[in-house]
């Protein structure tokens, strides 16, 4: 079953995107002539050295920041260029690195926030929908808890549900499982896998964890060290839904070697660049 078959929305074209921070002053080229496409309903995973500009790209797609040149299209609509920047909206939902559930709202209030504030659902409808979603992923009985009363793994799942209830075209996740232990991560992967297979939509997933990248991604986009460009794109043609025993299979190990080699080259370059800066 090809994920994305039922969904033909959320196609992203990234064309020659360049981002220069502080062009008049320090002039940091975060990204130079970066181009790649993400098909509708594709699970794209972005890996690359720290500080290479992955988050820069996410911010541009989300509408949090502008780009210096190039164009980004979502379903044929220009959403970001030098002269045009569409503001953030519910079609491009972001799940943040350090988590951004509102600590002053309960789990239920967090999840229903989007549909209620957009006046897309009545409060009671949104509560029903949220309860169904929580129930479906086995998160019962936490509706009235505050985020900080929950483990970070549960917080992340709730935050992902808060994004999904809006049925966005694209879900962008910036290292969402960083800092979770290995066991919790496995749970998160299965959770994300399940909801992705249930209703496939375009995913833009940033990570450092190569196992995670291959396990979840339908393609892995490896970025170069700064200024970021696409180093290599590895298609992951493993069947969905993926199971954890895959991680021992030969095809998986081959993919991992391929990704690892590309990442390692860039990591070395980044390290040497760092050494030069230190010297």
């Amino acid at each position, binding site marked *: 079953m090809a994920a994305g078959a039922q969904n033909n929305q959320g196609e992203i074209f990234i064309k020659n995107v360049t981002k220069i921070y502080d062009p008049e002053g320090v002039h940091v080229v975060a990204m130079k002539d970066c181009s790649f496409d993400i098909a509708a309903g594709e699970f794209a995973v972005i890996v690359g050295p720290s500080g290479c500009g992955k988050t820069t790209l996410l911010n541009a797609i989300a509408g949090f920041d502008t780009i210096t040149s190039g164009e980004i299209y979502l379903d044929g609509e220009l959403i970001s260029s030098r002269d045009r920047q569409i503001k953030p909206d519910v079609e491009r939902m972001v799940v943040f690195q350090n988590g951004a559930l*509102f600590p*002053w709202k309960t789990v239920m209030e967090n999840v229903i926030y989007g549909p209620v504030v957009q006046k897309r659902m009545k409060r009671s409808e949104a509560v029903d929908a949220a309860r169904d979603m929580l129930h479906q992923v086995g998160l019962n009985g936490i509706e009235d808890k505050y985020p900080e009363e929950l483990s970070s793994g549960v917080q992340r799942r709730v935050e992902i549900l808060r994004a999904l209830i809006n049925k966005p075209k694209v879900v962008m996740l910036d290292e969402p499982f960083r800092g979770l232990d290995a066991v919790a991560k496995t749970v998160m992967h299965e959770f994300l896998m399940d909801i992705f297979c249930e209703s496939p939509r375009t995913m833009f997933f940033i990570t450092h964890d190569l196992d995670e990248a291959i396990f979840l991604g339908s393609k892995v986009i490896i970025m170069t060290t700064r200024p970021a460009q696409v180093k290599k794109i590895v298609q992951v043609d493993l069947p969905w839904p993926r199971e954890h025993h895959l991680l021992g299979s030969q095809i998986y190990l081959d993919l991992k070697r391929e990704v690892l080699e590309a990442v390692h080259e860039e990591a070395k370059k980044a390290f040497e660049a760092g050494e030069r800066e230190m010297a």
Partner: protein
Amino acid sequence: MMSRLKARVTDPQLLRALIGILVFVSLWYLFTAVLNLPRFKLIPNPIAVLKDWFSFTPASGRSIFTKVYYLDIAYSVGRTLAAFALATILGVSLGLLMGWSRTFYDFTFPIVELLRPMPPLSWIPLAILILPGVEIAVVYVTFIAAFFATVLNTLLGVFSIDKNYFLAARCLGSRPKDVFMNVIVPGSLPFIFTGLQIGMGISWMSLVAGEIIAGKQGLGYAIYEGYFLYQFEHVISYMFTLGILGYISSAAIRAAGRKLMAWEARRRGA
């Protein structure tokens, strides 16, 4: 029920609190009644103060059995509450607006920072000249320092909010007014309540000073009167009255804070 009461009585925290108070009162007694230290000659000992405070016929005419005692309290509490309510409404509004709008901040921050350090009492002459009636002048002096403490803490509260909450709110489809109500207001509440605590403390301080200088009734005014009339028992009992009122007002603010910020209380496991 009994065991809970027993646990309460043998609770080391309560015991330590009682010991602390006992040591303080003993030293006071020692200095005034036993040692008769030269500088403490005119200072009444704790027993004399209590006797006067709880007397049916106090020498000063002021005890818990006299009407004037409650009138003094009513005046002071009324002034403080009026000043504090005004400081909260205006201070929180101004602080939130300053934190919300960069333009408004640019206009207002320098002048706020210039006025803020002025000691409340330095306002007395202007307050009396400009405001109609001494009563309003005293309230103004009580208000002004609490107001600035509230503004500053509210502003810091808005600045303390994680940027990601704003981004998340925008992603989720919030208009500016939704961001204000759902991110800025709740996000700055912990700092606002710190500001209110500080503000309440400053209010009481400025109130007594204001009453001494410009008042006609109230606890501060009565303390000063007691000083001139050599009624030191009532000076001290009124000081403790102020202490108790301050303690109650702080506790009330904390309780309101816990109610409004259930998420904070639960995080601390309260």
